[in-house]
């Protein structure tokens, strides 16, 4: 069934109708219900929620693997799991978390739900393609996890699938093929999401929603979409070649037939490093929405933020081989310089976030605490990344737990960003508040757990402990540090249980949220919670990047960030008309 969708009408300036209550005339849809609704819906809100819930389930599955890994590492000679099981566990932990949780959560879960609403659009540009993406993602996830059910077990060559370890001779199992095929499915799913993001943001904005009035979250998703289109096809091509090597007798990555194993690393990281920014930018966007709302200020340095995001997009394609420094076959100075440069825009963002909070009336809600936890933890991850970008230091730390700690600082920061987004937008999505008290306890467990988990790993890495080992040399200091790391992992696990408790609690004892519980700035807070089908019955005038705020606070209008330029322009125009 297709519907012609008209633009929502305007809510004229100044009148104080409570636009939330006039939902009586919203058109009902006689579409399918129940499971058929889930199977057939092309509504971006339904798809966004499906993505969000599925990816959170993946997070719990991947987290369970992590807890087993940490339990194994409490003792240097533990035999909780066998060596080959250990290899499967760390491979699937990394794969589930990167391919099936963080990415889909960020660029397809929240983004799908929010982007059309933030720009005043009725849906994503290609709703059926959007639904198709979700089904590819779900079937891809099932394909990858079913590796545990086949003889020979799941893939066990690490989430990076390095050649020649991933060749048919070295990894003959069905699990490896399932891993490759799962990534084909999720890879296409990501590409289609990227297409949808870019097309929606380019073509479906509401009147007056110029690019430089878009919320920063939308900006970041636009750039994420562009990066997806640049990076994912490379990975997919690489995987197809890997499959051909394994089954059709080609020798692209095998030395025996004249191939080059290092080619895989180039291809993988040419996707892999843009991917880390594909993962990070959405969460940058989430916290950039949250800091201003809970500081009661507009975002500090809007244009600087946009510029930083675009710079990151530009530079992120030129740093891939910092993952390959120790191969001895890459141009060290080039990749080192580029990697150090990319820290600059990231730093700009850090200062902008601090500038947003600076002098504001900061309200420490759960979403705000999570965002601040994100800021702190990401800072540590970024700084240790800068050390790794220096080849002499990387030669010392490569493939040790120091690297593991670096990216866990980063990705645990992203987990905090994800939770910040959920606490912030759940009222919009469900119409009900999450419990703030449980949320804050959860935050402290998560925050302390994360630091307790990563700091010992940095140290044990500097002591030389290699990553991906099920057992390690008996050494009291290594063991103590590993024990602390496992304590941290337990705290993180408890925080996730608290999250589930909060979800169930808020569901059983619903507290109605209303349209705009946080006095939000952007368009999603203008419509009802949850929004009606096709999102808006009416739209406020859009004169700045804070339309909803302007509408609700006519006496405190947001100052346009480009007001100086505009003033100059109009001065020039009037000067010109005077002269004539």
């Amino acid at each position: 069934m297709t519907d012609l969708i008209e633009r929502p009408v305007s809510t004229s300036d100044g009148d104080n109708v409570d636009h939330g209550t006039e939902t009586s005339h919203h058109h009902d849809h006689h579409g399918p219900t129940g499971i058929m609704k889930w199977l057939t819906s092309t509504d971006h809100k339904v798809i966004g929620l499906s993505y969000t819930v599925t990816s959170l389930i993946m997070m719990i599955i991947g987290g369970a693997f992590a807890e087993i890994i940490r339990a194994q590492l409490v003792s240097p000679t533990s035999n909780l799991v066998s060596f080959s099981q250990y290899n499967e566990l760390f491979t699937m932990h990394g794969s589930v978390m990167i391919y099936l949780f963080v990415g889909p959560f960020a660029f397809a879960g929240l983004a799908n739900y929010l982007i059309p609403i933030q720009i005043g659009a009725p849906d994503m540009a290609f709703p059926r393609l959007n639904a198709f993406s979700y089904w590819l993602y779900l079937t891809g996830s099932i394909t990858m996890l079913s590796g545990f059910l086949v003889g020979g077990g799941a893939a066990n060559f690490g989430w990076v699938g390095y050649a020649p370890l991933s060749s048919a001779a070295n990894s003959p199992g069905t699990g490896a093929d399932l891993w490759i095929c799962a990534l084909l499915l999720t890879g296409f799913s990501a590409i289609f999401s990227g297409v949808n993001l870019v097309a929606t943001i380019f073509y479906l904005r509401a009147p007056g929603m110029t690019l430089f009035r878009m919320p920063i979250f939308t900006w970041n998703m636009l750039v994420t979409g562009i990066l997806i289109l640049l990076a994912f096809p490379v990975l997919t091509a690489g995987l197809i070649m890997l499959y051909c090597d394994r089954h059709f007798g080609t020798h692209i990555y095998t030395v025996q037939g004249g191939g080059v194993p290092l080619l895989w690393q180039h291809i993988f990281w040419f996707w892999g490093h843009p991917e880390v920014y594909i993962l990070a930018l959405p969460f940058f966007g989430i916290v950039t929405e949250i800091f201003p709302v809970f500081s009661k200020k507009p975002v500090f340095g809007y244009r600087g933020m946009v510029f930083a995001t675009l710079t990151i997009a530009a530079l992120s394609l030129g740093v891939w081989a910092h993952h390959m420094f120790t191969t001895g076959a890459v141009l060290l100075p080039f990749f080192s310089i580029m990697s150090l440069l990319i820290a600059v825009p990231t730093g700009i963002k850090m200062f902008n976030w601090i500038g947003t909070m600076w002098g504001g009336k900061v309200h420490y809600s759960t979403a705000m605490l999570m965002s601040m936890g994100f800021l702190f933890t990401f800072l540590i991850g970024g700084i240790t990344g800068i050390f790794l970008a220096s080849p002499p230091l990387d030669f010392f730390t490569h493939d040790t737990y120091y690297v593991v700690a670096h990216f866990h600082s980063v990705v645990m920061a992203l987990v905090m960003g994800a939770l910040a987004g959920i606490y912030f937008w759940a009222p919009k999505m469900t119409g009900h508040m999450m419990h703030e008290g449980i949320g804050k306890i959860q935050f402290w467990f998560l925050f302390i757990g994360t630091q307790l988990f990563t700091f010992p790993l940095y140290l044990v890495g500097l002591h030389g402990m290699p990553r991906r080992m099920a057992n390690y040399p008996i050494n009291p200091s290594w063991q103590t540090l590993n024990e602390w790391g496992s304590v941290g992992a337990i705290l993180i696990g408890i925080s996730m249980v608290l999250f589930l408790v909060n979800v169930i609690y808020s569901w059983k004892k619903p507290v109605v949220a209303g349209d705009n519980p946080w006095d939000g700035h952007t368009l999603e807070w203008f419509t009802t919670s949850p929004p009606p089908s096709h999102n808006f019955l009416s739209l406020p005038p859009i004169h700045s990047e804070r339309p909803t705020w302007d509408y609700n606070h006519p006496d405190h209008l947001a100052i346009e960030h480009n007001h100086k330029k505009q003033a100059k322009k109009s001065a020039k125009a009037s000067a010109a008309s005077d002269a004539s």
Partner: protein
Amino acid sequence: MKFEGTVLTLLGVFYGLMGAVYWIWSKDDTGGVMLVGALALGLLPGLYLLWWYRRSGKRLRTEDRQDATIEEGAGVISSFPDSSIWPFVFAMGCFMGVLALVFGTWFAFPAIALGVMAMAGFTAESRRGGDI
């Protein structure tokens, strides 16, 4: 459209320049080819948008104008589907397709069947639905 096209074009040009520096300096063909490929991926949509902008007489759309009012955008946006089973069917076809790659060719039969069904369904649906 102008700014959208310019951003993509500039990104592409940047990748091209970076690729040139990299290729000449490192003599690594893999990375060089991939970066120059990225140049094309930036220019293709970027120049297309700019061309479209020129073709439409450099007219600013309401969403590109700072002073546009909501009323100006009145009218139909487009036709949007409400629900459709075909994305699910098509994805199941793809799922069977990759299972054929892993477990054996016989999975290819349901894969092709589902794929054909879905494509026929998609086409019929697009014909039927909407008035545009």
